[in-house]
Structures are given as C-alpha cells and as structure tokens.
C-alpha cells in the first residue's frame, strides 16, 4: 500500500477512507436490515391471512376424515393448502377440548384416531389458549428455534365441529435472505475498501503534491535561488499559500537587492573614505616634511643662531609639527585598521621567513638611522602559515616600528621566528625583543587596546595614538593567532605573535 509516502498524505487518505467506509457500512447495513424487517413483516401478515383463510377449508377437510375416515384426500388437501404459503411449517388441528385431530408437516400428515384416545396439545400455554378460544399470532421459541405461530378458533354456531387451527411458520426464507444480504454487505465493504484506498490516496496526493512543490520552492529559496518561483495552479488554499509565498519571495528579492545595492554603495563610500584618509595623510606628509625639516634646522642652529625669543618660538613650532606628523601617521594606521576585517582576508599560504626578511630589508634604513644593533634569528626553514601577506607584513612592520620607537639609540632589536605548538596546534612564533623603556606590569594587558598608550607623557614623547599594536592584535586574531607581551620596565619588551600553520581544512 503506497500510503506511507508523506505523513499528511497518509493522514488525509485515512480520513477519506474512514468516511467512505463508515458511509458504506451504514447505508448497506440499513438496506439489509430494512429488507429483513419488511420481509418479516410481510411474512407474518401473509401468515395471519393464510391461517384465517385456510382454517375453514381445513375444518371441512377434517370432516371428511371424521365422517368417512378418508385419510388420503385429507392428506392431499392439506398438502395443497400448505403449498399456498412457502413459509408454513406445520398445521395442527385441535378440538376445543385441547386434543389434537391431526398434525400436518410438509412431509406427512399424522392422523390421530377420530374417536379413540388422542393426545392433548403438549404446550401448556397453547393448550390453555385453545381451550379458552383465544386467538393469537406470536413469535415464539420452540425447541431453540424462532417460529411464528398463529392460533385461529373456529366455532360455527350450533355445529358439532368446533376446532382451533395452530399454524406454525418458519423464518428460514427470511433468515436466508438476511444472510445473503450480510454477505453482499461484506463483499461491498471489502470492494469499497480497496477502491477507497486507491481513490483516497490519489485524492490526498492531489493536495499534498502541491504542498511538496511548495516545499521544494522553499528549499530553493533557502539555497539562494531567489529568481525561481513556485508554480501551483490548484485554485485552492494551497495556491493562495504559494502565491503569498511568491509575493514574499518578490519582497525578499527586492529587499536583498536593495540591501546589496546599499552595501555596494557603503563599500564604495568606505573605500572612498579609506582612500581619502590615505590620500590626505599622503598629501599632508610633504608639507609636513618641509615644515619639520626647516624647523629642525632652525632649532638646531644650522641656519644661524636665533635670538632667544625666536628660538623659543621655533621650538614650540617644532613640537607642534611633530605632534601633527604623529597624528598623520595615526590616520594612516587607521586606514589600515579599516582594511583589516577578516572577511577581506585574501588567504594564501605564506612563508614567514621570506615575509620577515622582506619587511626587515625595507625597514633596515630606519633601524640603522637609530644606530640599533639588529638581529634576525631563524631556523633554515619554517612551515607555512595561512593568511593575508599584506596584513602579516603590517604586523611585522608595526612590531618593528613599536620596538624602534621605544628603544633609544645604541640599543638592540631582535626579531626571531621559530616553529612552536600552541594548545596542541602547530604554528609559528614570531618574537620581537627590544631594549626599550619597557611596559609597567599593570599596563601589559592594555597595550593592544585601540588608542591606548602607557600614559599621556609617553604619548607626547613617543607619539602615535597606539593604533599600531591594536592593529597587530586585530590582524593576528583575524588569523586565529595569539599575541602577547612580556616586559620589564627599564630593560625592554618582547612581543610574541603566534600564528597557526595551515591545517588540513585550509588545504582543501
């Protein structure tokens, strides 16, 4: 039975089948029962008519036996009379004293001696009825069977012969009819069940197949195929639902389109902002350099000695230009932070040795100009990490920048890279150590906060808004790495950056 397909379909099929079967059962049962009761009614009516009709001829025939002792004509007459009613089973003729004259069945007629001793009616109720001349027509139980018994008294005025007829009818014909009716009902039910099962499944499928189409449509939308629509033309609630669903998809598509457009505009705007920041800071650098350079020359007396007032003024200008220069650098860093979101991580395998070498190569001049002792410690090879090369370069650069910034002339600077596991995951550890001013213990956890520097005087002395390290933090976290710092005030700091190696998943 293909009903298990889809719970709703099966349920609907069951409901339909149930309704059909109940209707079928009720109608066939009522037909059969109606037929049974009306047949029985007809039987009993005709039985009564028959008994009333045959009582007089029977008594006449009985006379022949009484007067002349003729048995055969009586037998034949009785048999003829019995032929008139198919349901009559026996006919008993009794005298009004309760003694039997003859008893006729379908097979034979039993005569009792006319004037000899004849038996009395054995049934006491019947015996009483006959003696007191009560007429009746009732359904009674006789020897475990139900029969219809009609008692007719016939007493002709002034006549010798006064008798009672006890006619017994059976229900065999009706019962047989009932059995046949029940059999037909069962057959009809079985056939009905088979047909109903088919029909109801087909009907249910007609409804649920539309629902399945709708479900397929929902799945398509979930899969992002927003262009497709559900096509259901069933002109019912399911179609209404499908139409509403299509409308919703239209709205969704429009909304997504608008959002996408808005996002594009925002991205463009953001890019514009980033570019603007980069360009502005770039445009600011050249005039700043001129200002800064000449002020420094003036301040240091390279262009001739200044009067004391003038010298003080120049010193103020110089300080402020330096501050301005630092703000410009912060702007540059800020534009980098904006770019460092993880979704923009164009990820590729990276050889960190190569990357660090390249960054230090371009950064070397800066280190040299501060006369720092610089070393790059590394093994002959390192496993590759996964990431965005530009951003990781920015990490190394910012760490170097930070170290150089806080280390006074003649100090040392070490950058080292090695293989190192972290929490069971293979990776590479980059270490940048300096002999700078160090970080107080309480400040260690905060150095990676955006815009944080150890204190305001540090900011004035060393510049920057502290974006460099927070950018390092941001990028490393976006690469699922870890960054931390160890430091001792007056001795120096070591920054650690751990980056995970390419995992199996990355290589897929």
């Amino acid at each position, binding site marked *: 039975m293909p009903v298990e397909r889809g719970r709703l379909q099966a349920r609907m099929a069951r409901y339909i089948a149930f309704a059909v079967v109940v209707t079928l059962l009720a109608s066939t049962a009522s037909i059969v029962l109606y037929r049974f009761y009306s047949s029985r009614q007809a039987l009993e009516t005709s039985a009564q008519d028959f008994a009333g009709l045959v009582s007089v001829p029977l008594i006449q025939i009985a006379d022949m036996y009484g007067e002349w002792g003729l048995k055969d004509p009586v037998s034949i007459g009785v048999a003829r009379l019995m032929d008139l009613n198919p349901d009559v089973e026996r006919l008993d003729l009794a005298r009004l004293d309760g003694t039997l004259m003859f008893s006729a069945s379908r097979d034979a007629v039993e005569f009792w001696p006319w004037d000899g001793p004849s038996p009395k009616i054995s049934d006491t109720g019947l015996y009483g009825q006959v003696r007191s001349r009560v007429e009746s027509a009732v359904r009674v139980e006789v020897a475990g069977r139900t029969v219809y018994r009609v008692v007719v008294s016939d007493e002709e005025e002034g006549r010798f012969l006064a008798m009672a007829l006890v006619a017994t009818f059976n229900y065999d014909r009706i019962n047989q009819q009932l059995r046949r009716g029940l059999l037909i009902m069962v057959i009809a039910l079985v056939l009905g069940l088979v047909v109903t099962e088919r029909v109801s499944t087909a009907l249910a499928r007609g409804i649920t197949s539309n629902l399945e189409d709708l479900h397929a449509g929902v799945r398509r939308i979930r899969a992002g195929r927003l262009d497709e629509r559900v096509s259901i033309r069933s002109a019912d609630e399911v179609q209404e639902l499908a139409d509403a669903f299509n409308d919703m998809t239209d709205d969704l598509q429009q909304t997504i389109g608008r959002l996408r457009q808005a996002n594009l505009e925002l991205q463009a705007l953001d890019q514009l902002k980033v570019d603007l920041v980069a360009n502005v800071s*770039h445009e600011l650098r050249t005039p*700043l350099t001129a200002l800064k350079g*000449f002020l420094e020359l003036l301040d240091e007396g390279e262009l001739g000695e200044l009067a004391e007032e003038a010298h003080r003024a120049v010193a103020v200008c110089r300080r402020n230009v330096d501050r301005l220069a630092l703000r410009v650098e912060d702007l540059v860093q800020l534009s980098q932070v904006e770019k460092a979101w993880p979704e923009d991580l164009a990820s590729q395998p990276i050889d960190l040795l190569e990357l660090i070498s*390249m960054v230090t*190569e371009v950064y070397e*001049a800066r280190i*040299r*100009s501060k006369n720092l002792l610089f070393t790059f410690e590394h093994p002959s090879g390192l496993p590759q990490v996964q990431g965005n090369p530009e951003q990781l370069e920015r990490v190394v650069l910012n760490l170097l920048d930070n170290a150089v910034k806080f280390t006074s002339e003649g100090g040392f600077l070490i950058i080292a890279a090695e293989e190192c596991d972290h929490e069971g995951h293979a990776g590479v550890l980059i270490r940048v150590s300096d002999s700078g001013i160090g970080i107080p213990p309480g400040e260690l956890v905060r150095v990676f906060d955006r815009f944080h520097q150890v204190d305001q005087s540090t900011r004035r002395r060393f510049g920057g808004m502290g974006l460099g390290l927070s950018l390092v933090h941001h990028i490393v976290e976006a690469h699922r790495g870890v960054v931390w710092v160890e430091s001792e005030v007056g001795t120096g700091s070591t920054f650690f950056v751990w980056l995970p190696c390419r995992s199996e998943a990355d290589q897929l």
Partner: protein
Amino acid sequence: MNRIYVVDDEPDMVELLATVLRGEGHEVETYTDGRAALARVLEEPPELLLLDLMMPDLDGFELLKLLRLDARGRNVVVLVVSARTGHRAQLETLQLGANAYIYKPFSPRELAGQVRQLLAEREGSTSD
C-alpha cells in the same frame, strides 16, 4: 664634496633637501621636472640622486626605470624620498634599482645620516 641632484616636484621640498645637503657640504643641483633631471643625470652623472616618486609627467618609478636602462645611469646611487609609506612601493623601487628609501616626514638628521652612509658605501665599492 659630492655632487648631488635633487628631484622633487615640490619646490619647498627641493629647498629643504638642498639646504640640508649643502649644510653637509655637498654640491647640489635641484630639479622640479623629471625629464630635465633625467637628461641632466645622463649627461653628467652625480654621486647621488635624491628622487621623489610622485611627480607629474615623468614620475619617480619611470625615471628610475629609464635611468637603469641607460649605461650611463646604471651606477648612479639613488635615494628615493617618498610620502608613500606602503612598503610595497618601497620594495618596488628597490627592485627597480633604488639604493635606499626614506619616507616623509623625515628629520634632516635622518636624511643626512642616510646620505652619509650611502656615499660611504659608494666610496667603498668604487675603491674596491
């Protein structure tokens, strides 16, 4: 006493660079136009060329490329002075054949130090 050419489209920058270098005792020629500077370098190569990257017409990258293509300019020591801090640009110029890179804003002392070092290296390599 070395001859140094300075190329930058900003006259004020040129002025600053020239002032610092003259203060160091060098002979300085200044150019605000890339083509004129290139012609002059090829005509009479200096000991050192200070080169800005962002210039109209012929920019620093192009100038450097043309310079290195010419036999006369192949050995000129070039110090790139730029406001472009991206180390991509820095790497690019180094690959094009610049000898060093200094980015704006720098202090005169920093510049003077770089120049001294480059000239000393040049001295060492030519005397070898």
